């Protein structure tokens, strides 16, 4: 068997020692949450991947809202992230604007909020818990588009 020990970093060694000692078992709720992730699968959806925006991606100064952009074939989802009170507010723009009857779902592992898309392609949701989220765009005449899971922490 070919091995490449040079790839072993400190964290991997520490993890291996702890795992072998069995003294830090994985909490039951962590395993339960991992199983529950499967309920979030969208097999028919196209994934919109994150792209770098003009504002340095992932960096936030005190006043500037975070701007995230996700691109799939033929569809762009832009999200402005603000967190005035420890919870997460999202204001979104989908372009080009899909037809009437488009529904947007804002998903976290714990809850899903649905919003009809405005005629100009906008939607908003407030008061989300910090953590992982994803936005699904359900178009009446095409497959859904889902943004790559992203973690937001105020």
């Amino acid at each position, binding site marked *: *068997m070919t091995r490449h020990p040079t790839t072993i970093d400190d*964290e991997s060694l520490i*993890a291996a020692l702890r795992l072998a000692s069995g003294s830090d078992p994985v909490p039951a709720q*962590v395993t339960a*949450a991992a199983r529950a992730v499967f309920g979030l699968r969208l097999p028919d959806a196209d994934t919109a991947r994150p792209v770098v925006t003009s504002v340095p991606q992932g960096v936030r100064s005190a006043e500037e809202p975070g701007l995230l952009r996700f691109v799939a074939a033929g569809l762009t989802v832009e999200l402005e992230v603000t967190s005035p009170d420890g919870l997460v507010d999202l204001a979104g723009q989908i372009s080009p604007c899909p037809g009437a009857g488009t529904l947007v779902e804002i998903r976290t592992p714990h809850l899903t909020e649905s919003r009809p898309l405005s005629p100009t392609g906008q939607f908003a949701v407030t008061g989300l818990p910090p953590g992982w989220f994803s936005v699904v765009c359900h178009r009446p005449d095409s497959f859904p588009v889902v943004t790559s*899971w992203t*973690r937001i922490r105020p």
Partner: protein
Amino acid sequence: MSDQPVIEAILAGDQAAWDALVTRFAGALWSAVRAYDLNPADAADAVQGTWLRLLENLHTIRDPDRIGPWLFTTAKREASLLRRRHRGERLVADPVDTEHARSAPADAGHVHADPVLAVLTADESRRLWQAVDRMPEPCRSLFRLMATAPDAGVRQLAGRLGMPSGSYGPTRGRCLNRLRTMLTTREATP
């Protein structure tokens, strides 16, 4: 053993196949992210993100035997980002790493190259601690303490080892280097 049937079952919507994968890797992923000095809440966050990413990218994993390394690399990346956040970097969302999802996990490391995955077998786990037992002090005690007290702070660990707090980090680094060399030498022996 190939994971191809597992991947196909999961892609077909088989929750039991997913659950089996979770059971197989949950412990290794937990240890992997906890090694980044994450508290339990952040560690849970990193692990959950890892599974979300797998669900999102499973159909792109070409080599079915790479699920383990893929999960592991992804978990380490999430944990590393969380640690950076705790060190004072303000990130509203994590930096875009578009290369990651496609190439990095598949290319990073080799199957069984990572000790955390190797330790999933009882034999490897025993051999790792046998290597520690051959080490001189303070390494032997340091590793035992580090492994059994995952939530202890540096000051507490240093105190129990009878060394100044400032010495703990450098000593741990030297001990890890030594252990790494021992493992490397062992692997090079036929």
